[in-house]
């Protein structure tokens, strides 16, 4: 097995036992990136020098017999809206250029302490707003399974990097499906943890009440490994959970015996759900059933309002979070203005792409005097109702299973001029963010075009470990085996 094919868990074990050096692993992955990323465009920035230095440091500590962390020598890729000290954070936006953070995000600090080697930053839809990574102002990212197709979004670069064998692990962020959708499109595992499990400190905010950083891996075990490193209370994030989350450091228990799985009828009744996706997902659920799970229908009646609710809450928060990019303090500044209002306007006019502008305008509108009650306040009430739907369903079942997206990866350019269709591609993922519950995408086969399909599993709040165990139980049955796209 080539080094780039190995899982993070096996690389960590081999590096620790000196079967292979961190430097060899890093070099192997940098070589693969060098050979193939020109066709994929996963990375916005590759820090070969920094990665080699980190690897050398790990090797020297292992040589000296010092204790090293759980990710010692394991290469990782970081979505380019999460800070790594000294590496530019672009958010794939022109307006951020040239912003270089002077501090590590909570998660990257934890990963650094665990010995991870940062290969570089990965492409995303500008400020994580999109479902195809086509909204990046920097570059296009191609799906490693079919270069004509999108990798999904917004964490398309991270998903593509993992699926292409550039990195066994990657970080993404998920506001409405931005980890799970690209994981599904690219055929890897992606988890959006329960809101509050992972600190948001050092993640450039999009929709603060929805944003959650999460791990990508090619296996559930690797995904769980990265989560165990990045989870934990952070006093700098008041929304991070103070109490420890059960089971994140325990080994997975991949069993479906006695597990109650719910199938939300509203999810399977949606127009636009492709037969192939429906069949793959139902087959996956059947496989779990054959392993001893009980399957029943559940209902999430308020789900039909999830997309409009999401596009009010997320855009309202985004319009506020993105107000700071004005040319005065950070990032780019428009030239040739002679007063402050023009400086603000022109900087933002030139710096933001069309999707970001659209969302800022939507968000500004719904927060405006006279509209606040009708839109924002109402959306918060619906959001509560959606969360209550999940609570009710989780009284009956342990895990809810559904598709991740209505279809497999679409073609580059196919939906870019139809924002509403693009928004609807998130229809199955958005509600977990609104309800603050965890969701995972795990590969469940391919469609007739050979494109991967994802099974989404959703769990109770802070039962992220159970979700991972369930995903691991299915993974054994799926025969996917951490497959890497053949490039």
């Amino acid at each position, binding site marked *: 097995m080539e080094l780039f094919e190995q899982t993070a868990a096996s690389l960590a074990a081999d590096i620790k036992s000196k079967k292979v050096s961190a430097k060899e692993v890093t070099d192997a992955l940098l070589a693969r990136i060098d050979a193939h990323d020109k066709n994929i465009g996963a990375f916005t920035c590759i820090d070969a020098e920094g990665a080699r230095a980190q690897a050398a440091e790990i090797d020297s500590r292992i040589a000296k017999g010092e204790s090293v962390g759980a990710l010692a020598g394991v290469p990782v890729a970081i979505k380019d809206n*999460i*800070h790594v000290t000294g590496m530019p*954070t672009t*958010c794939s936006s022109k307006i*951020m250029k040239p*912003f270089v*953070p*002077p*501090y590590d*995000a909570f998660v990257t600090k934890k990963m650094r302490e665990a010995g991870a080697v940062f290969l570089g930053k990965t492409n995303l839809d500008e400020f994580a707003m999109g479902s195809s990574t086509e909204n990046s102002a920097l570059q296009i990212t191609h799906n490693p399974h079919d270069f004509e197709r999108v990798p999904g979004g917004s964490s398309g670069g991270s998903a593509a990097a993992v699926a292409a064998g550039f990195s066994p692990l990657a970080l993404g962020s998920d506001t409405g499906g931005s980890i799970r959708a690209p994981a599904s499109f690219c055929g890897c595992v992606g988890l959006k943890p329960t809101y509050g499990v992972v600190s*948001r*400190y*050092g*993640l*450039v*905010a999009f*929709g*603060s*009440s929805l944003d959650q950083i999460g791990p990508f891996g090619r296996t559930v075990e690797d995904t769980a490994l990265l989560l165990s490193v990045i989870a934990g209370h952070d*006093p*700098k*994030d*008041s*929304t991070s959970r103070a109490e420890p989350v059960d089971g994140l450091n325990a080994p997975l228990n991949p069993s479906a015996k006695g597990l109650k799985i719910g199938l939300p009828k509203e999810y399977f009744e949606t127009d636009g759900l492709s037969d192939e996706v429906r069949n793959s997902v139902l087959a996956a659920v059947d496989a779990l059933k054959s392993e001893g799970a009980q399957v029943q229908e559940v209902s999430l009646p308020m789900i039909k309002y999830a997309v409009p609710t999401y596009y009010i809450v997320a855009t*309202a*928060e985004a*319009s*506020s979070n993105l*107000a*700071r990019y*004005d040319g*005065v*303090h*950070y990032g780019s500044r428009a030239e040739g203005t002679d007063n*402050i*209002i023009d400086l*603000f306007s022109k900087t933002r006019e030139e710096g933001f792409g069309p999707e970001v502008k659209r969302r800022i305008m939507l968000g*500004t509108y719904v*927060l*405006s*005097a006279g509209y*606040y009650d009708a839109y*924002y306040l109402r959306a918060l009430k619906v959001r509560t109702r959606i969360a209550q739907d999940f609570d009710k369903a989780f009284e009956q079942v342990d895990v809810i299973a559904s598709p991740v997206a209505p279809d497999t990866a679409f073609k580059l350019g196919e939906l870019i001029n139809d924002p509403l269709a693009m928004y609807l591609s998130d229809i199955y993922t958005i509600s977990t963010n609104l309800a603050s519950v965890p969701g995972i995408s795990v590969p469940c086969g391919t469609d007739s075009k050979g494109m991967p399909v994802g099974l989404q599993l959703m769990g109770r709040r802070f039962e992220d470990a159970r979700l991972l165990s369930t995903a691991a139980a299915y993974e054994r049955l799926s025969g996917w085996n951490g497959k890497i796209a053949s490039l």
Partner: protein
Amino acid sequence: MDYEIVIGLEVHVQLLTETKMFCSCRNQFTHEPNSNVCPVCIGMPGTLPVINKQAFELGILGALGLGCEIPELTKFDRKHYYYPDLPKNYQISQYDLPVSQNGIIEVEVDGVRKKFGVTRAHLEEDAGKLMHESSHSNVDLNRTGTPLLEIVSEPDMRSPQEARAYLEMLKLILQYTGISDCNMEEGSLRCDANVSIRPRGETKLGTKNEIKNMNSFRGVEAALTMVVDELLRQTEAGEAIRQVTWGYSIDRNQIFKMRVKEDANDYRYFPDPDLPAVHVGRDWVEAIRARLPELPLAKKDRFMKDYGLSDYDAGLMIQDKKMADYFEETTRISNMPKEAANWIQNDLARELSSRKVAVEDTAMKPEALAELLDLVSKKTINVPTARRVFMKILDGDTASPAAIVEKEGLAQVSDTGPIKDALEEAIKANPKAVADIEGGKPATAMFFVGQIMRTMKGKADPEAVAGVIAERFGIDPEILKSNKKKK
């Protein structure tokens, strides 16, 4: 027509915390621009605010001092406006669930006690400062994130004098609670006013005018008086009153128009998703209430009742809590409240002010003043000698007053022998004065009081001196005491 003046004040005070409102930067004035900042207070992408518990508690303490209720639930909201000194382009403030509301301040105006309502007092972060140059402006963010308590009054004041009295009492109460030093000149207390006029008997508010930048108590009264005059002039001239925002120049003692408002600002307030709402437990409030000191007017009443101070003296004694404490301590030891009050408001106040020393730092401790009062009351020394001893201690003599009197032989002489000798000597040298007295100008005998005091280096007992002179010339001794009674 008879018009009624309606005034409400909005006051911002900086809280005396160790650190800023939402980060761990020191809360202190820093000269070098942008040297007391961190990623959080400059709103760097990826950062998150964390509520400063000390600021929160000081806010509650101050609000309790203003008689406010503390609701069980409070939250922070984002207030949006674009300005270069506000790095996030929103201010974290409180909108519909402030930390406190419905207070009352009792104020003395021309000897009459009146109650003015406090609508609310809420917590927020301060902005930075702009420094304008001819071609550009510089931004200094040292002040950004300083904790503020904004105190909004009801429109209860009916004259500029009442507004000033309210503000002075507000300042005094907040200084008593210790939450702020309330220095208007240095900007730790800032006051904006809303003012309108209406025909007496009308209950609706007239069109309001605002006044900003009145950075002294005198300025508040002066600017309000000028704006009221302008409103009356416009009304009497039949002009419609426009909603004008005025500035005030203390140097020129003038008001000037800053802007004429057409539309209300839309700040697009919404709950800050980075800061969960705070449940303020009743135990917590009571623990904070236990830290509340006796408030100024209660103290004044007690000083009048317990110590027999006049309204005037008691009013002076409470103008500074530390001065009031000094008075009480001196009185506790000496049991001479009236004399203590006289010394404190005259000699001590004058010397502290000219030497720029705080009452708690003066070398003249309450114990020493009490001892001095005791020496005077026992006629060991006379008042002029007591002043000399007082000055010696302020000038650095660390001995006690009694020890200084002993050491320097300052005890007063009541024995008439030396006084008579001194008088005879003076009579010989000043035959004209003698002739004047004997010729029907008994007041001229005062001249000999001064002569005797000079000869005896001020140590003579003034009563004995008066007795000796009166006897020698056969005049009424009261004539010789008249100059002691000047006020």
